[in-house]
């Protein structure tokens, strides 16, 4: 297993979040999630300006094995979507933490980072899944 990027926050649903300098949050799925799904063949993205609630469906990722909902890890407003994924969904497999990002959100006012997992905490979760 590759080392997790240390500058990201994680969720138990295998998503990652990065706080950008302008206050927005970039969101994707982790390498573990992408590997478990296998080669992705389709990504359904939300609309820009769409309001999402934490825990609500935000996108769908589909591999040859399965289609899986991506849940919004936080509440907020979608400000950007990675349209490159329409043509190249495999970017999520190749660079899950880079060019494979899925959406960028403007978090709602009650955004609380402490509800998310640190890299160490997420690594621990992965280790438990390995057993």
């Amino acid at each position, binding site marked *: 297993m590759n080392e997790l990027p240390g500058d990201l926050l994680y969720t138990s649903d295998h998503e990652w979040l990065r706080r950008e300098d302008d206050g927005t949050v970039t969101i994707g799925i982790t390498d573990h999630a992408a590997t478990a799904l296998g080669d992705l*063949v*389709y990504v359904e993205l939300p609309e820009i300006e769409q309001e999402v609630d934490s825990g609500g469906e935000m996108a769908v990722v589909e591999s*040859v094995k399965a289609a*899986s909902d991506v849940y919004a890890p936080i509440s907020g407003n979608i400000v950007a979507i990675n349209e490159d994924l329409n043509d190249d*969904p495999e970017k999520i497999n190749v660079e899950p933490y880079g060019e494979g990002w899925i959406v960028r959100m403007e978090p709602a006012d009650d955004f609380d980072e402490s509800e998310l997992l640190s890299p160490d905490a997420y690594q621990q979760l992965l280790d438990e899944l390995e057993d």
Partner: protein
Amino acid sequence: MSNLIFDKSRAGRRAFAQAPGASAAVAIPEKFLRSDNPRLPEASELQVVRHFTRLSQMNFSIDTQFYPLGSCTMKYNPRACNTLALLPEFAGRHPLGPVSHGQGFLTCMYELQEMLKEVTGMKGVSLTPMAGAQGELAGVAMIKAYHEARGDHDRTEIIVPDAAHGTNPATATMCGCSVKEIPTGPDGDIEIEALRAVLGPNTAGIMLTNPSTLGVFERHIKDVADMVHDAGGLLYYDGANLNAILGKVRPGDMDFDVIHMNLHKTFSTPHGGGGPGSGAVGVNNRLLPFMPIPVVGKSEVDGVTVYDWLSEDDLPQSIGRLSGFMGNAGVLLRAYVYMRMIGREGMERIAEYATLNANYLMARLRDAGFELAYPQRRASHEFIVTLKHEAKSVQLTAMDVAKALLDRNYHAPTTYFPLLVPECLLIEPTETESKETLDGFVAAMIEIVRAAKEDGVNYKEAPYTMPVRRLDDVKAARQLDLAYRRDAAEAAS
């Protein structure tokens, strides 16, 4: 890869047996008649016979190989079912003929309804749905119709466990409902507290497979049924795994309100690559008025028993028709013959031997070092092996084992389903396999893993011996191309 029959075509070549008959004059207006000939292949009779015989020999089928495809119940289809369903009195019956000319067929269909009611513990059965997916659609449509008939318009949520067949949430969505997913606990039962949390005034119902797709019996089914009913919802039974409990436990006695049965699984009619199936539905008293039509009814006229079609006039609240007539008649007849041959006691033996075979296979694979997904549970008619350790240590994935099995002349088990279990094989031997066949399969599984671990064999290119080698399923999904283009084919040849 074999050429298409079109590739063998040569202008002017003819086959007597396949030649069209003399064309009679037709009353189609001149402007609608085509002026150019259709592009039909022109081949000799021998070429046609060889072509299709060879294609048929490329198939894996239950008639030729062990087919332990989990959740599909690939059991033997007795020849007698086929022979009797093809009797000219059945096969030649016109579906629009008067009912007085079809009393024999209608008697069989009425008795099939009655036998299915008895074996499932339901109060009514409609044979109309053409396949399992349509049976599901009919089932959830009836649940919706029930709530709406009571003015309960806010009940639009269908609860589905995360281990469910993908068709369950798809069906709920098709019926205009939203899906609430609940998790499965580590022992394979659904988590009761998670169910409690999603039940409420919007609950239309819950869709369950029991035994579940994890191959274990849901032990809290009584509690689940009480909780859902207390919340005002109904229970839907996905009949995919009915084989495991046939004649032993009845969905009606588990308090299910509606069930669909895959007659092509449990009652041994042929599974046909998307071909004709049957998704008969059973209902309890609550849902009787909403059954899809037609249903076969029975009455006494002047002391004579008469069978007839029940339609909108008899069931005004019916969800309606699902096909031109009533299901796939030939499939229904095969199921009828099968049930008559098996009889009531035979039904119990089906469940017993299906379960015995699965548990024997599971125990032998466990003893050989394979890891079970739910080792603490007894298998129902199927069970799950996970290759997560082999995938990590020697890069041997579930897909590699599946393909390597093809080279050893076994159809692969179901791979990567259910999604909850990593690198899994879902294995269902069914009751019709001999111990020798099961032992042969175990030996093949052991040898595949041993060769990977000890000899460093990798199966990334397997299968080697099949007419079609390892498919690039990613490319097939990303660049789907199913069209035959004659010009391109000719340019390539």
